[in-house]
């Protein structure tokens, strides 16, 4: 028997055919990009913590390897010690910069001062290698405004005892560290009660405008000189030594390990402060890293990517993150919504699960996924978090769209003798299409915004400039990410309005 397709010109193709075309289109693009990014190249991955010095040294390591002909990538500003350590152990990164004091206290969890050799022996057991110290000690320090310190006669940490009224702003990491605030306060019997937790870069602004009087800093921090601050003398020798070293997986290729060892002993404190200052001045870590090579070997300067290249890279990654996660949300959300529309215990469970997923703050969802096997610090994790996050609007709208179909029409479809699958495809889903599409649209717009957080775990996208701008306290850099993200959300919204006209059957738009 001949298949009937065109009994009249106004008979547009059955809806599911049109859905399929759009599905294919949506599916192919991000998938290609995704697989390509997974399989095309296997470069050495360098991680860095979320502060200037770590970024700069990450860039130095990258260029060192590149010049040795080893492909390397730098995942900038991935987070704090534990995140990077777990990423290194889990193999999501191969190299990152750490400090001996941090290794002893935070990773090996010991109160003793360990020698470099002791630390190396302990790390080897976990499959991690360590270079000799790079040459500078970046210990913690407490800093104050110079004029304020002079006025109050404060020179040492011990002097703080005389001024319980001072407001102290500390990074969250310092507040929690075993060699951080609590033991420090005990050791010096500090009386201050007015303690707040604040981001490192924002803390300098708070110090400058007087919202806080004392904050923690790193002794090689360029901001100390720049903001006319003084470090208080650690008269009890409380802070351990924080010699900078590179940690690497012992399974890393030999030439890369040799390259890292070559960096040992090449950076003293003065030089590191200069590089940090250069990074803050130019707002460009690559430029600062290049300064290291200029002085050392006088090689040519590579200026890095142009803004447009970066923008293209961010946009592509952002689309990949949001697009792929949206696709997953659609592919699982619609079937789940169909099941949920039938109500009952299963339906309530599905709606409950999707609802809970959305109440978890997106940042927390990312943080919760990172320690799980398979996830870790990766694009995969970001996409999974976004996918879970985007599920609710689609599930809920699919379910309510289907439930809103009048009983008389459901019964007409049954009484006609249409099989259940045909009822769903030809009648129920098209009738619910408006509601389903608006759920997808909501999910897409949320995803574009939330995807900026993916940069926190080094997954890139528009969050990358936003994060580094936040770190540098540089509004222009923040806007370089924020404006395209907002524009993209608008474009997506607009495209969906267009898609409505194609996908929602005309009979429902009258």
């Amino acid at each position, binding site marked *: *028997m*001949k*298949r*009937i397709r065109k*009994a*009249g010109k*106004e*008979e547009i193709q059955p*809806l599911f055919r049109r859905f399929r075309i759009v599905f294919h289109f949506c599916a192919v693009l991000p998938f290609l990009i995704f697989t390509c990014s997974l399989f095309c190249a296997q470069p050495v991955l360098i991680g860095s913590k979320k502060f200037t010095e770590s970024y700069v040294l990450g860039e130095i390591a990258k260029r060192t390897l590149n010049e040795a002909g080893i492909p390397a990538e730098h995942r900038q500003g991935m987070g704090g010690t534990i995140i990077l350590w777990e990423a290194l152990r889990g193999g999501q990164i191969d190299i990152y910069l750490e400090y001996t004091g941090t290794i002893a206290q935070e990773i090996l969890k010991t109160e003793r001062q360990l020698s470099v050799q002791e630390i190396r022996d302990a790390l080897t057991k976990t499959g991690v290698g360590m270079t000799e110290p790079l040459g500078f000690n970046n210990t913690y320090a407490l800093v104050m405004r110079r004029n304020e310190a002079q006025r109050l006669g404060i020179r040492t940490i011990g002097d703080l005892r005389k001024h319980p009224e001072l407001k102290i702003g500390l990074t969250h990491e310092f507040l929690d560290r075993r060699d951080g605030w609590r033991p420090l306060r005990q050791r010096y019997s500090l009386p201050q009660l007015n303690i707040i937790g604040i981001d490192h870069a924002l803390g300098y602004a708070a110090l400058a405008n007087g919202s806080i009087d004392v904050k923690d800093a790193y002794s090689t921090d360029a901001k100390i000189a720049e903001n006319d601050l003084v470090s208080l003398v650690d008269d009890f020798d409380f802070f351990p030594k924080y010699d900078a070293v590179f940690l690497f997986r012992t399974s890393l290729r030999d030439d890369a390990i040799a390259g890292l060892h070559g960096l040992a002993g090449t950076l003293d404190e003065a030089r590191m402060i200069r590089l940090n200052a250069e990074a803050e001045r130019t707002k460009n870590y690559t430029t600062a890293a290049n300064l290291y090579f200029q002085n050392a070997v006088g090689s040519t300067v590579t200026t890095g990517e142009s803004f447009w290249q970066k923008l293209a890279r961010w946009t592509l990654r952002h689309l990949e993150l949001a697009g792929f996660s949206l696709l997953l949300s659609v592919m699982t959300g619609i079937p789940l919504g169909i099941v949920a529309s039938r109500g009952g215990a299963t339906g309530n469970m599905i709606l409950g699960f999707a609802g809970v997923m959305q109440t978890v703050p997106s940042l927390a969802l990312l943080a919760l996924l990172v320690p799980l096997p398979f996830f870790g610090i990766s694009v995969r994790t970001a996409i999974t978090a976004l996918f879970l996050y985007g599920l609710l609007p689609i599930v809920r709208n699919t379910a309510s769209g289907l439930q809103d179909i009048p009983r*008389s*029409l459901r*019964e*007409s*479809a*049954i*009484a*006609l*003798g*249409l*099989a259940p699958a*045909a009822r769903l495809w*030809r*009648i129920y889903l*098209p*009738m619910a*299409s408006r509601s389903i599409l608006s759920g997808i649209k909501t999910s897409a717009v949320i995803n574009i915004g939330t995807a900026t957080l993916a940069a926190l775990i080094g997954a890139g996208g528009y969050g990358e400039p936003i994060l580094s701008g936040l770190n540098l306290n540089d509004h222009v850099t923040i806007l370089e990410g924020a404006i395209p993200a907002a524009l993209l959300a608008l474009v997506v919204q607009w495209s969906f309005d267009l898609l409505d006209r194609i996908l929602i*059957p*005309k*009979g*429902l738009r*009258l």
Partner: protein
Amino acid sequence: MNALVQLVAVTKRYADAPALHPTNLSIERGKTTVLIGPSGCGKSTLLRIIIRLIAPDSGTIDFDGSQITAANIDILRHRIGYVIQEGGLFPHLTARANILLMARHLEKSDEEMRTRLSELCELTRFPENLLARYPLELSGGQRQRVSLMRALMLSPELLLLDEPLGALDPLVRASLQKDLKEIFARLRQTTLLVTHDLAEAAYFGDEIVLMNEGRVVQQGSIIDLRERPANPFVSEFINAQRSLAVL
């Protein structure tokens, strides 16, 4: 025995109350049987049980000699047409797509469908140029004609009509009544029609089935009901409708 459908001791109860007491009913081939009775007496329930939108609690329903079960109902539904008061047209499909929905699903040939469609348009006096419209672009009477065409598309042996004219204004209703009666006669269509209007029942019904509170009270011609009422309710029901008609 010339019954197309035979209900034997069919019952149905909803959570709080019985909707159908044990009910027997036979629907004769080629005739129009009219179900009539006060609101809530179980007319729609009976129709919905035949097409198995709801399953009976007990009793059997035979269709063309074989019992209707959950297993064979899908096939049998292709042999039964069903029209409800609001039409039940799908708003996202044009009139044509609504009518052809099942035929396409069963992969009938283009040619066959085109011929059948023109036949139906002529039969129901529906202008072919309106076939491209969506249900929302049609009047109530036009919608019911489309709904009827959809029900008749596969030439069903049985046509179930649940107050098909209930929502129409009197003029449209009168003209559709006339057309329907003509159609039934031409097709020699076995029809079970629900109405609560005695005049309509008398106009259509070869056989009238009067129901009350989930039971069949009397079955026969309008003359039978008028001249030989089975109990006081029958005369009461007929007189009530008569006095209304006088108004």
